[in-house]
């Protein structure tokens, strides 16, 4: 399969993998695959070749992840900022994407066998129409697969994603599905492009840069960040193991920090709910005091109705997103007739 290398690990690699797997393993790893252009310069090849090698390395890395029991991977393939690069380079990258997504569509059997679900996160409307359609077809074709997940961030920046999530919540308010008081950290997370995935446990950036570069800023707040100096096309199984080891060393502290954050979130929500109920009772009441039992009952009713509103809104949002992809995908079908 072109997107996942079919190669088994060597004996030493298998041994190391088994030892690492005795400890806590990340379930979701994100990669900033940086260093393709520097590699091309180093190897005296064209930039396009560097990007091509970068894709090959992605296929290899996905295989290693599966071997290590990591079933969800998110990669930063193309940033909205990258549109500012030379037309030649951008066109080259779009062409590479066309080739790879077209190839993917011819490997349906393999994809089904490995249960690979491909998701593409970003503002696809910024891409050429034909590439949009190829992507939509790939996403729709692999939607039902659930053994492993590959999220490709294409035409993506985190700030754009967060603003888009806020826009979705505003859409919900406009449609009368939710109230502005329903907006919370949890709801915002559910409106991001990555809402169907858990937050990454580990983020790896290659080529020695120590920035996040507008990638998953919200989702990686409590992730283990590992910056490695190796260039992406030169990435090795041992580099991956090193990153996983780093994750394992930080695991306890990260769990603690995440639990603390979750507690804080729950408290915040409770505060918000209580405040809303107090306001509600004030509006409803005629200056009469409400006893604590009735107040508690009101609070529970309010929470139940809020959760129902949110549930309906999220269903509507998922439907809107699914429709976008299926419409785009079926357009392609009509074009080819």
């Amino acid at each position: 399969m072109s997107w996942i290398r079919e190669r088994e690990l060597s004996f030493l690699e298998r041994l190391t993998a088994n030892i690492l797997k005795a400890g806590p393993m990340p379930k979701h790893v994100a990669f900033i695959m940086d260093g393709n252009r520097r590699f091309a310069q180093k190897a005296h090849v064209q930039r396009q070749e560097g990007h091509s090698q970068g894709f090959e390395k992605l296929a290899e890395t996905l295989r290693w992840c599966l071997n290590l029991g990591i079933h969800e991977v998110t990669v930063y393939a193309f940033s909205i900022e990258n549109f500012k690069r030379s037309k030649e380079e951008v066109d080259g990258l779009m062409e590479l994407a066309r080739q790879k997504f077209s190839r993917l569509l011819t490997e349906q059997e393999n994809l089904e066998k490995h249960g690979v679900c491909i998701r593409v996160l970003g503002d696809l409307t910024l891409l050429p129409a034909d590439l949009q359609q190829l992507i939509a077809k790939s996403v729709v074709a692999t939607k039902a697969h659930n053994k492993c997940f590959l999220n490709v961030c294409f035409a993506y920046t985190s700030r754009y994603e967060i603003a888009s999530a806020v826009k979705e919540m505003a859409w919900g308010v406009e449609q009368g599905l939710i109230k502005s008081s329903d907006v919370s950290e949890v709801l915002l997370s559910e409106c991001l492009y990555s809402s169907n995935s858990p937050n990454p446990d580990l983020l790896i950036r290659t080529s020695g840069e120590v920035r996040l570069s507008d990638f998953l800023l919200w989702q990686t707040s409590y992730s283990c960040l590992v910056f490695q100096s190796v260039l992406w096309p030169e990435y090795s199984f041992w580099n991956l193991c090193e990153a996983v080891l780093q994750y394992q060393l930080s695991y306890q502290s990260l769990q603690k920090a995440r639990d603390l954050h979750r507690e804080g979130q729950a408290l915040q929500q409770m505060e918000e709910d209580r405040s809303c109920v107090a306001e509600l009772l004030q509006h409803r009441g005629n200056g009469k005091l409400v006893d604590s039992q009735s107040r508690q009952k009101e609070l529970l009713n309010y929470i139940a109705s809020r959760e129902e509103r949110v549930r309906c809104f999220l269903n509507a949002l998922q439907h809107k997103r699914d429709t976008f992809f299926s419409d785009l995908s079926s357009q392609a079908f009509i074009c080819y007739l």
Partner: protein
Amino acid sequence: MTILYEMAWRFLHALFYVQRALVAWFRVHIWRWKRAVVGLLLPLALGLHKPKKTGTISKRTSRRVRCGADGRTLEKLPLHLGLLITEEEIHFTDVANLVVWCMAVGISYVSVYDNQGVFRRNNSRLMEEILKQQQELLGMDSSKYSVEFMKNGTDKQEHQVLSCQSVVKVLSPDDGRLSIVQAAQQLCRDVEQKEKTLKDINVTVLDSLLRESKNIPDPDLVLKFGPVESTLGFLPWHIRLTEIMRCFIIDRCWD
């Protein structure tokens, strides 16, 4: 077989803990060695002819001179430097020293963050410690460097901006995701009240709304102290292009 792998895993982790401890030990001793060398050479560099009774210039004077000297060697300074403390036990003196060094070197905006909100709850203690270290480390020059402590929730600048004024801001997770959520709530309320439409919501609008309530400039550089390899909720919106560097506080190096 599983038990063997588990044992091998524990051994591997034990090796790493030992390696970390050794590296930390070497780091302390090499730093102390360097400091001793500087302590001996500095008087020669400054052209002091009469060494004091102990034969070396006082630690305090050497620290002050170093602060200024460090600043002059830097070609480019970050506008906003963030100190992200992930250590279990927080040493206020160490953090205060770092803040004072930042001020002396000429960094105009310094933020201090921990994910448990310890600095936020002990804001005044940190403030006192910073003023104390400012006096100790900068001595005569300390009047040149005035520090503006940003109170939580208010961002009104009470003093005029002087040439060597630094702003110190204590941050907590509330300034991160929670601030974004509050801005989102505001925008949704505007849509609810038909004051805004969906078209009015974009990155620029969200960004300006965030700057309106808490005008925190994007950090250029974050120095992360402690063993946890994570930002632990530090200003997710603002750290888009921030360089994140691991640093180590060499315990009690300032004595």
